[in-house]
């Protein structure tokens, strides 16, 4: 008799608990707005293997072009100077005088 009562009590408790869980789940599914997820703050990962080429390719290219333009203009100034001095004393030696232009490979 006691066992029967115990089992009856347990079944009642379990039934009530199940009902509570189901009610909770049902209420959650009926929420008007889904729970907002906070924007994840993603910390910048350390770029152990990043190089200037990946991080600032455009800036690097502009700096390279600027350097080449500077070298070009220096080369032209040097060549112009040699040509003008050739006019003052035209000889094969003055015509082919070497300069220290950064664009000349000797």
């Amino acid at each position, binding site marked *: 008799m006691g066992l029967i009562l115990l089992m009856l009590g347990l079944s009642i408790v379990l039934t009530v608990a199940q009902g509570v869980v189901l009610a909770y789940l049902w209420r959650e599914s009926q929420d008007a707005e889904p729970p907002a997820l906070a924007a994840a703050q993603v910390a910048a990962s350390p770029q152990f293997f990043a190089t200037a080429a990946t991080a600032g390719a455009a800036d690097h*290219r502009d700096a*390279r*072009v600027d350097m*080449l*333009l500077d070298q*070009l*203009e220096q080369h*032209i100034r040097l*060549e*112009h100077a*040699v*040509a*003008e001095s*050739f*006019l003052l004393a035209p000889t094969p030696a003055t*015509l*082919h005088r070497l300069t220290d232009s950064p664009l*000349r*490979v000797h």
Partner: protein
Amino acid sequence: MTAQADFFAGLPASEVAALTALGSRVVLQPGAVLFRLGDDATHLHVVERGAVALSMPMQVEGRHQDVRVDECLPGHTLGWSTLVPPHRFTLKATARLQTELLTLPRDVLLAHFTRVPDVGYIVMQNLAAVLGQRLQVFQAMWLREMQHVVDLSHG
């Protein structure tokens, strides 16, 4: 400064004043373009103050770049194509600093030379001297580049 300009070399002060009166003064801010490659050449310019860079286009890493090939300082004249057919500028001119120019229109100049041929004769002599010197300089520069090409290709 105008009297010492290469354009006026050999002219008496009175003639320099008469020619100067034919023109107008122009002030360019740094970076201002005076004329571009291919533009009609209708005005001669005498630099009185500042500096004008003359550039030509090159392809550098797939992009068009203006490369400075010469510079005009006070006393220099630019825009000689104004007096040389086909009257088109073969360079781009850009003010490097705040620059003041005396600008002389071709038709007014030529009309003056017709009225005063002695002045026209001296100015054309000056033109021939400037262009001749420029031709010889660039001829030498070109030959030096050809020598470099030969050295690279044939050791």
